[in-house]
């Protein structure tokens, strides 16, 4: 892992964070600058990842910091897509600090790379983690969009923060975007789990084992599935949907960050 490139990207993400904060707080700043700074960081980030994959091949994500690097890269990429389509600059104010912390943490863990166990030298591994991470990244953005929704909603209900909230899109637009993210995120997560169980069959000999990592994924999958179902059939929307989206992501991220120390898993891609 080229730590220097990654550090440079982190610096740009920090600058982008500052720029986004200025954008949100001050009325008179240009709206393009923060996104452009973020994009510069993204290019460096891309270079760091590309160099890494070039060196390590498809087994390049076995370590925690590698997972962080890849995941944060996906989040920025998705944000940029959303920004182009919806001009949701305010979302950047949440995304930029998060990816800054992720890349900073990744570069702090150093450049150690792990070896894939011999039984797992298959192309299914990158397919699996790419799908799973992409699903995660989509849900991360859904989390941020929900947060923005709640801010706008609160402002309207309590008649507060009028000037600041003008920069935020309407509740209707935010709710629709939130729904679309769920529609994209859920199939990605499903495919991630399916490819995972395929790998489990190869490596552990069974499609499903009651491993804590698998259980937490299963719970999150059921949760998001129920949420999607509720949105489609039962008119679940608005504040409740936003809160549930945020809760779902906490389940996903919670295990990723803390669960492992309590309930060790045999699943790879973590501190080994």
């Amino acid at each position: 892992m080229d730590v220097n490139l990654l550090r440079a990207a982190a610096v740009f993400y920090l600058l982008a964070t500052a720029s986004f904060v200025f954008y949100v707080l001050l009325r008179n700043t240009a709206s393009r600058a923060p996104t452009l700074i973020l994009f510069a960081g993204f290019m460096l980030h891309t270079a760091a990842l590309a160099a890494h994959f070039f060196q390590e091949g498809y087994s390049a994500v076995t370590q925690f910091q590698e997972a962080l690097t890849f995941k944060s890269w996906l989040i920025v990429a998705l944000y940029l897509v959303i920004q182009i389509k919806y001009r949701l600059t305010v979302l950047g104010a949440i995304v930029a600090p998060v990816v800054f912390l992720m890349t900073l943490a990744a570069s702090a863990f150093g450049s150690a790379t792990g070896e894939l166990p011999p039984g797992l030298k298959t192309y299914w591994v990158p397919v699996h983690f790419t799908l799973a991470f992409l699903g995660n990244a989509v849900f991360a953005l859904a989390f941020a969009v929900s947060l923005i929704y709640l801010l706008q909603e609160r402002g309207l209900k309590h008649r507060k923060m009028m000037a600041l909230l003008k920069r935020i899109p309407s509740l209707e637009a935010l709710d629709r975007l939130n729904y679309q993210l769920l529609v994209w995120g859920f199939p990605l997560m499903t495919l991630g789990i399916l490819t995972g169980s395929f790998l489990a069959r190869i490596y552990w000999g069974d499609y499903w084992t009651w491993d804590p990592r698998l259980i937490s994924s299963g719970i999150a999958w059921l949760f998001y599935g129920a949420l999607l179902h509720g949105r489609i059939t039962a008119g679940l929307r608005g504040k409740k949907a936003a809160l549930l989206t945020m809760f779902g992501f906490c389940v996903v991220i919670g295990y990723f960050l803390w669960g492992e120390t309590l309930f060790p898993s045999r699943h790879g891609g973590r501190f080994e």
Partner: protein
Amino acid sequence: MEKEIVIVGMNHRSAPIDVRESVAFENAYVRDALARLSGYPVVLESVILSTCNRVEVVAAASDAQTACRDMKMFFDLQRAEHGASNLEDHLYTYQGTEAVRHLFRVAASLDSMVVGEPQILGQLKQFYDAARQAGTVGAILHRLFHRSFFVAKRVRTETGIASRAVSVSSVAVDLAKRIFDRFDDKSVMLIGAGKMGDLMARQLQRSGVKSLMVTNRTFERAVAVAGRMRGSPILFEDFPHYLKMADLVIGCTGSPEILVDAAAVEKVLRERKQQPMFFIDIGDRRNFDSAINDIDNAYIYNIDDLKEIAEENLQGRSDEAKKAEEIVAQEVENFGRWIGSLERMPTIAALRSHFDEIRRRELARSLSGNLKDLSAEQRKALDDMTAAIINKILHGPILHLKKNTAEGGEEETLYVAALKKIFGLEDK
């Protein structure tokens, strides 16, 4: 030839509406009026601006005093068709720097009746274009107007002057825009036939809502209001059944009782699968239960809430106006520097007189030669046409020259030297 900027005109403060109307220029006649203005020898460039709140002539003149007198006369003549009376009391005049400041303030909507209203810039552009097409815009007004557009843009982006709604109905529309992404698939229900409700419904219609339902205790009034606003009338007893079709509900009855309570809203929201609803309560009494605010996906603002926001915004606007005045002051200074640089440019004057001399010589030769049979009118037309040709030919080069001089680039000396050499200007 030195040119000075002069503005003569009247606005909503200096003249009452009937006086303004009597001198207003209809779009179709602006061209004629500009031609008449060009008839005054000291008026070298001119733009006419005529909106419902102001009628002004912006000119670049060779002699400011004479131009002011001529332009006042021009207004009097315009007025004469509507029965003469002295306009002197209603007209203001600005010259030089003050004229520049005035135009910048107009463009930035600081001189508008509702400060910050955005239409004036578009109107300014439209009248500038008309003058350009009529051929009465030269280098000075070209620069002045483009500068004023730039100032307006700066004021709009750097201050919040235009971004704050100051009327109750525009505040409500602003709020609705924070709830709804688009209006063209939204329906409005207007309950009651108060004046405020009328205004609000109209404003929402202008914002592009799909449909409007109108209900009133007296059905005839509902029919009348609906007819006026292309809405559909609904029986008062029936309106609760139609509530689920309404995204925005305006309450504007004098009724002392609550017409829509929280339980009803909860039920309706279930029926509409929680599609958000916005209740706007602007009657003299509360028509909607304020507990609606506690229900998810329902939003309610009453007249006091809206007035409070409008007040705050108005306060904010005057703060922003101060910032805007500073921007205008800066830009006036910048423009003054540019005008100053013009005077230091004998090359342009020499270039102009060189071409003009050629024109006059050739014209005189033709008019005494094979064109000697032309009438006085035709001679005048020919004179105008040739002058216009010269102006058009020189427009680009002179603009370029002025731009470079204003920026004080190294190129300047190069161009000046080249021009002098090519046209032999130094001999004169």
